[in-house]
C-alpha cells in the first residue's frame, strides 16, 4: 500500500512545484528576459558562447543604468539541444511573461520555441542560421546574425569572382551543416558552378582520410567546407597531411580564430566569408573581443557576438520607443535599420527585413601565418 501512496504523493508534488515557480512575484523596476538556449547536448559549444555574450551585454547595460531605467533580469534555461525540452522551456518562459525570449540556436529548437513565442506575441531573438526559419511568416522571430541564405550568396559570388568552376562540398550532418549545404547548393547551381562531390561527415568524426581521398579524387577547383569548429580543424589537418594545395573555402567557422588555434599551421591558406568576427577591423568589435577574452579566458566566436548584439539591439529599439511594449518592439525592428554610431553596443550597423532577417556588412578573410587577414569588406546586400 505504501508503494502506491508514495507514488501519488510524489506525482502530485511534482505538479505543485513547477506550478509554484511560475507565479512568483516580480519587481516592477526590472525587465525580464529568458534565454532558451543549448547549454548541454550537441549544441552546448555554441550555446555557452551565446550565453556569455548575453551575460556580458546585460552586465554592461545594468551597470550603465539598465534600459529606460530598469535593470535587466535574465534567466538562462538549458534546453538540452532537444526540441521537446526547448518547447518546455519556451512554454515556461511564456508563463513568466518576459519582455523577450533569447535563443535558441539549433533549428529544431528554434522551430518549436518560435511557434510558442509567436502564439504569445513575444519577440524572440534567436541564434539560428538555417535559411528556412524566417520563411514561415513569423512576426516575432528575429535573427541575430546573417542567415545562411544571406551569407552563402556572398561566398558563391566570391568563388565566381576568383574563377572557380567546380567545387567539392564537405559538410557536417547536423542541422547547422545541412542548412548550409542546402543553401550553398542552390547558390552554386544558380551561378553554374559544378558540384563534383557532395560529402557529408559525422559529428565527432575522428578520421577524415576517406573524405579527403574522395574530395581530392573529384578534382574540383576548390573545396567548400562547412562544419563545426573541431571538425573543421581535423579536416584541415587531414587535408594538409594529404598535401592538398587548392583553395579551401568556408563560411565563418572555417576561418574563425578558434579553428586556427586548433588546426595550427594546417589552417594557413583557408579562406572564407565571415559575418561576425572579433577580428573585424572595427574598433568597437576589437574592444568587444578583448573584453570577452579578459572575462571568459577564451576568444569569442560569432555566437558570442550574436548574443551580445541582440541585447543591445533590444535596448536600442526599446529606448527609441520609450516604453516596454512587445508588439511595438517587434513592429519597430521589422524594416528598421540601426547604426552602431548611434548605438555602440550593436558593434556593426544592422538592418532588418520584413521576415526578421538581418543584413549588415561582412568580410572576406584568409588565414595567413595563423592569423585572420581581412582581404575585403563586403557591404550589406542592400535588399532591405
Amino acid at each position, binding site marked *: 500500500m505504501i508503494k502506491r501512496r508514495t507514488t501519488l504523493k510524489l506525482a502530485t508534488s511534482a505538479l505543485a512545484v513547477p506550478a509554484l515557480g511560475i507565479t512568483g512575484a516580480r519587481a516592477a523596476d526590472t525587465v525580464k528576459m529568458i534565454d532558451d538556449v543549448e547549454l*548541454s547536448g*550537441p549544441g*552546448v*559549444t555554441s*550555446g*555557452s*558562447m551565446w550565453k556569455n555574450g548575453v551575460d556580458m551585454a546585460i552586465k554592461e547595460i545594468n551597470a550603465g543604468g539598465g534600459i529606460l531605467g530598469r535593470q535587466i533580469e535574465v534567466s538562462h534555461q538549458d534546453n538540452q539541444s532537444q526540441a521537446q525540452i526547448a518547447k518546455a522551456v519556451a512554454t515556461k518562459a511564456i508563463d513568466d511573461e518576459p519582455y523577450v525570449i533569447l535563443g535558441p540556436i539549433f533549428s529544431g529548437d528554434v522551430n518549436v520555441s518560435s511557434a510558442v513565442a509567436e502564439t504569445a506575441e513575444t519577440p524572440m531573438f534567436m541564434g539560428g542560421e538555417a535559411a528556412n526559419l524566417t520563411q514561415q511568416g513569423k512576426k516575432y522571430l528575429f535573427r541575430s546574425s546573417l542567415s545562411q541564405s544571406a551569407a552563402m550568396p556572398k561566398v558563391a559570388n566570391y568563388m565566381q569572382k576568383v574563377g572557380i568552376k567546380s567545387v567539392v562540398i564537405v559538410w557536417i*550532418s547536423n542541422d547547422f551543416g545541412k542548412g548550409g549545404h542546402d543553401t550553398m547548393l542552390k547558390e552554386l547551381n544558380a551561378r553554374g558552378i559544378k558540384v563534383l562531390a557532395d*560529402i*557529408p*561527415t*559525422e*559529428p*565527432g*568524426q*575522428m*578520421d577524415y*582520410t*576517406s*573524405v579527403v*581521398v*574522395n574530395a581530392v*579524387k573529384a578534382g574540383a577547383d576548390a573545396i567548400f567546407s562547412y562544419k563545426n*569548429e*573541431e571538425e573543421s*580543424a*581535423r579536416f584541415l589537418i587531414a587535408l594538409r*597531411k*594529404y*598535401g592538398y594545395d587548392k583553395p579551401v573555402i568556408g563560411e565563418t567557422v572555417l576561418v574563425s580564430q*578558434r579553428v586556427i*588555434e*586548433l588546426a*595550427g599551421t594546417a589552417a594557413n591558406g583557408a579562406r572564407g566569408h565571415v559575418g561576425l568576427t572579433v577580428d573585424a577591423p572595427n574598433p568597437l568589435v576589437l574592444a568587444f573581443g578583448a573584453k570577452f577574452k579578459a572575462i*571568459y*579566458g*577564451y576568444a569569442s566566436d560569432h555566437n558570442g557576438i550574436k548574443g551580445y548584439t541582440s541585447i543591445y539591439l533590444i535596448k536600442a529599439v526599446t529606448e527609441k520607443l520609450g516604453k516596454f511594449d512587445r508588439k511595438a518592439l517587434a513592429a519597430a525592428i521589422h524594416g528598421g535599420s540601426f547604426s552602431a554610431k548611434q548605438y555602440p553596443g550593436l558593434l556593426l550597423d544592422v538592418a532588418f527585413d520584413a521576415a526578421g532577417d538581418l543584413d549588415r556588412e561582412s568580410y572576406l578573410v584568409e588565414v595567413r601565418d595563423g592569423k585572420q587577414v581581412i582581404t575585403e569588406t563586403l557591404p550589406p546586400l542592400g535588399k532591405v
Partner: protein
Amino acid sequence: MTDLLQLLLSGVSTGACYALAALGFTLLWQASGTINFALGEMVMLPAFMMLFFLNVASLPLAVAFLLTLVASLLVLGGMFKLLVVDPLIRHGVIPLVIATLGLSIGFKNLTRVAYSAQVFTFPSIFPDRLIDIFGLRVTVAEIGTAVLACGVALGVQFFLNRTLTGRAMQAVAQNRDAARVLGINANRMVMYAFLVNAALAALTALLVTPVYLAKFDMGDTLGTKAFYAAIIGGFNNSRGALLGGVLVGVLENLVGAYISPSYKEGVALLLFLLVIVFMPQGLLGKPEERRV
C-alpha cells in the same frame, strides 16, 4: 592503390585509438562482469586533468601525465570500484549499467561547467612530422599511436597469460569460487583490473587527445566506437579489442570512401549486430558457457 593504402593506414591508426579505449572495457568485463557505460568519459577525464596540470599549474607534460596517472588510479580505479561497482555488482548488470550512465552524465557535465564547453588543443608526445613513403603520407603521431596501442594490447595480453598475477586474475574471472579455493585473493585481483583500466584510460587520453582534441563530450564518439570494437573483437580477449578497433577504424574509412559517407557508421554497426547475433563471443573471444 595509394588511396586504398592511405585509407587502410589511417584506419589502422584511428582503430588503434578505439582499441586502447576498448581494452579497458574488456578488462573490466573479464575481471568482474562490469559493463561500463562511462567508458568514453574515463578517457575524457584524464585528458582534462592533464590539461589542468599543463595550463593552470604550468607543469611539463611528463609531470602532468604522472600526476594524472595517480589521480586516475585513485578516482577511476579505486573509488570507482569501491564506491560504485562493489555495492552494485551483486544486483545484476542493469543497476550497474544505470549507475555508470549516471557517472557518464555527471563527469561530462562536471567537466563542462568546470572547464567550459569549448575545444582545446593538447600537446602531442610525438614530433609533428610528416613521412612520405612512396606517395603514402603518414604522420609520426599516427605510426606512434598505432605501435604503442599494439604494444599495450599485447602487453596486457602477456600480463594476463604469462604472469602469476595475470593468471590469477583470469582464474578469478573464470570461476571466482574455484580461485578462492586456490588461495587467490579474488577481491584484490579485481582491484588490479580496475587499476590497470584506470592506467589505460590515462594512457589513452595521452595518445588520443592530441589528434582528437579535448572537449567535454569527446567521450561520446570514442566510447561508442570502443564499445563496437570490444564487442566485435571479443569481449573476453585482449587481442580481440585490438582487432575490433582496427576493423572498425578501417571499415569506416573504406565504406566512407567507396560506399556511402552517410552510412559510414552503419556498416560498423551492421558488423557489430551480426557479431552479436551469430558469434556473441566476438571474433577472437572464447564462447561463454551458458549456465544451467
